[in-house]
């Protein structure tokens, strides 16, 4: 069948990759590994940029109205006046921090980066099913990112109506909001191409013998994630089109009749519904939470199995729980909207689904922690990050409970409690898992290990400061401190807990400093890291470790054949404590 396969990558295989000019090989590459690295590097830069935005914002919360020392003078007068931040800039920082971290940082890193690089290797495929679409996916993401960044420089600045962009406020916001919508359209189409590619690759291109229940859990997590991206993103695309129409063609999809802005009757036809946006937005944005967390769980499972040297506890339970989680994530979205005056039946329905979705999360977390029992745990840097993910995600999940029940949500809605809750899920949760993944797969990508000492310094300081940043937010939230306040001192109820803001801000800046060892380690190790002694430095079982290091174009010298499940560690009577999936006999 080989002689009439005409995939572009197949042609490359024949002519050898050296024939390709530089720009085809590293810039407009169709190789999933190059694209994966492009995604990883771009999204790490975006993560850092998004973090810088919030470090700026935290100055205003800690020291409201005081000029920002040293760097404040470099900002234009539209953003800061002699170093004092303007509300315009504050709200841009807030909205763009959320947008960039989620859509340009974590998702592209977790799915675009790790998914692209690791997934085809783990299923023994030479590439993704549609390499050209894969390249397009990256470049759409890149353009979307550039548009988002450029929006800071348009008159009125970037989007400033929150990352949720609720109309009518976003409808009447400055032009940056239009840029935000156009940028989102690129990002949505990028993720659409990516998810189609992932699904087809997983279904069609698994190596011989690699049945669904022999897939590493990471692949399962990516599979479920791809379905979420495929089916949940389009309604946001629809919503973005409607909001673009409202902003550009002056329609009234989200503008009700009789709107009066600044004592002026709005010159629109009216008849729209502001809450419509929230439905379409949260129809995406709740599954999006699981897009952020599932790949993280996948990475953590791989690393835990490898570093406990034993099979995962309840692999099938993990798989079924993640499928169920994905399914349920589509029908919980309105728990973000309890205060928009929904009927009793609706609120009961969404509270019930929200409680139900906590069960598979509990199962996954329990399964992962029980996997430690009976192991022989190696405390490598990736393992430390993976282990830290568990309690951090646990806190994030538990604190979701009071927000999922309407009665307690009344008090906690739109307070710092919410911010603490979802940051525990995605910051010390998902981002720790992503760091774990970087440390874990770095040797496969570069052929060199990252430095363990720097890695451990990075871990311990990040762990401490992450908690110093987010734990006090629960106290603020219980005290009723509301989010998105330019001046935290306005309200009497916020003043007693204001010292916490200073504590959080200082911790956030220290957390920023704690990333320096990582940056040094990451770039330093590319050139100076200790070379790996063989293709499988962690003695792992899954297929990516049987490929050459770094994997060449086409990945495997011979198509791998799989004989066993993904986590055959410490098989009784084996000579070595791991049995690769490709091993016909137990070694």
């Amino acid at each position, binding site marked *: 069948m080989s002689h009439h396969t005409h995939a572009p990558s197949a042609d490359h295989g024949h002519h050898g990759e050296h024939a390709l000019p530089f720009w085809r090989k590293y810039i407009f590459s169709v190789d999933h590994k190059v694209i994966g690295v492009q995604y990883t590097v771009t999204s790490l830069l975006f993560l850092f940029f998004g973090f810088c935005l919030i470090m700026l914002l935290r100055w205003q919360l800690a020291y409201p109205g005081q000029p920002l020392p040293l760097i404040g003078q470099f900002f234009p007068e539209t953003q800061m006046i002699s170093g004092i931040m303007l509300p315009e800039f504050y709200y841009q920082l807030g909205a763009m921090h959320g947008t960039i971290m989620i859509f340009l940082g974590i998702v592209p890193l977790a799915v675009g980066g790790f998914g692209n690089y690791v997934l085809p290797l783990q299923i023994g495929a030479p590439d993704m099913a549609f390499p050209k679409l894969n390249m397009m996916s990256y470049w759409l993401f890149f353009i979307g990112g550039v548009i988002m960044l450029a929006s800071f420089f348009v008159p009125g600045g970037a989007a400033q109506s929150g990352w949720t962009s609720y109309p009518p406020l976003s409808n009447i916001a400055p032009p940056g909001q239009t840029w935000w919508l156009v940028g989102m359209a690129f990002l949505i189409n990028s993720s659409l191409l990516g998810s189609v590619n992932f699904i087809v690759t997983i279904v069609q291109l698994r190596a011989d013998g690699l049945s669904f229940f022999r897939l590493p859990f990471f692949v399962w997590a990516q599979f479920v994630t791809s379905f979420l991206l495929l089916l949940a993103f*389009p309604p946001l695309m629809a919503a973005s089109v409607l909001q673009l129409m409202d902003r550009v063609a002056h329609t009234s999809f989200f503008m009700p009749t009789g709107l009066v802005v600044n004592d002026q009757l709005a010159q629109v036809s009216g008849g729209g519904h502001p809450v419509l946006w929230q439905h379409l937005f949260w129809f995406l944005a709740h599954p999006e939470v699981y897009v952020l967390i599932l790949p993280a769980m996948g990475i953590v499972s791989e690393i835990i199995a490898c570093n406990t040297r034993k099979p995962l506890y309840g692999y099938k339970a993990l798989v079924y729980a993640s499928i169920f989680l994905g399914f349920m994530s589509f029908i919980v979205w309105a728990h973000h909207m309890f205060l928009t005056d929904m009927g009793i039946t609706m609120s009961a329905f969404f509270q019930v689904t929200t409680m139900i979705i906590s069960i598979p999360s509990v199962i996954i977390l329990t399964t992962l922690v029980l996997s430690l029992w009976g192991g022989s745990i190696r405390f490598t840097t990736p393992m430390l990050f993976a282990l830290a993910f568990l309690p951090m995600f646990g806190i994030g999940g538990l604190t979701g409970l009071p927000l999922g029940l309407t009665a307690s949500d009344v008090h906690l809605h739109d307070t710092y409690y919410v911010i603490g809750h979802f940051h525990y899920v995605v910051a010390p949760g998902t981002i720790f898992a992503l760091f774990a993944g970087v440390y874990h797969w770095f040797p496969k990508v570069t052929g060199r290990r990252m430095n363990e000492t720097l890695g451990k310094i990075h871990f311990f300081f990040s762990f401490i400061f992450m908690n110093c940043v987010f734990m006090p937010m629960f106290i603020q939230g219980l005290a009723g401190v509301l989010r998105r306040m330019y001046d935290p001192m306005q309200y009497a109820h916020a003043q007693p807990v204001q010292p916490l803001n200073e504590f959080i801000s200082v911790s956030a800046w220290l957390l920023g400093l704690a990333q320096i060892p990582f940056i040094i380690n990451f770039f330093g190790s590319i050139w100076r890291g200790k070379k790996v002694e063989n293709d499988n430095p962690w003695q792992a079982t899954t297929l990516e470790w049987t490929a050459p290091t770094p994997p060449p174009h086409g990945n495997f010298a011979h198509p791998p054949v799989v004989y066993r499940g993904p986590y055959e560690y410490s098989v009784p009577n084996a000579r070595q404590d791991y049995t690769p999936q490709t091993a016909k006999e137990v070694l």
Partner: protein
Amino acid sequence: MSSEIRYISHPHPVTGVTNSKLGVWCFLASEIMLFGGLFSALVMLRGGSTNWPHGFEVLNVPLATLNTMVLITSSVTMVLSWASLVRKDLGKYRLYMAVTVLLGLAFLVIKSFEYGYKFEHHIYPSKSTFYAIYFTMTGLHGLHVIGGIIVNAYFLLPGSKLWHKDPEQFTGRIEAAGLYWHFVDLVWIFLFPILYLL
């Protein structure tokens, strides 16, 4: 050998489909949700409105009926062009595909008359929520038609070279393009009564 992507021409032995077929169905699933979002908006806006006009009173039903006929005819010529390839008849394929592309263009021409007529009377999307959803949904559908015409025109002319190298893969591509084109037809089948006839 090892660096080749499998199941591009031949279906996977277990799933029974080729990569492109599964891929295009995934894409269509996503499209269903895209139009689902818009239909949901339509239902919600219409439900909350007290002065929603009857489509047949403000829109041109005969023109839209003609357009419906054009689109379903193009759907049948599309499927016939694929059937011609299965019968290894490239000439017939070209004929049916050319008709499909022309019918697609005819749809756009008729649509532009409809839009032009509205613009002449200063009816823009901003006039009312009804016109807003009418222009948005038919406009987005029109963009899908344009996309389909580009794909079909590509397979009619330069893309058909693949036939001589790998007829099976080419037939698969035409089937995939056809699935998309039928989907565009299918969206119109719902848009037409909901916007024009109710």
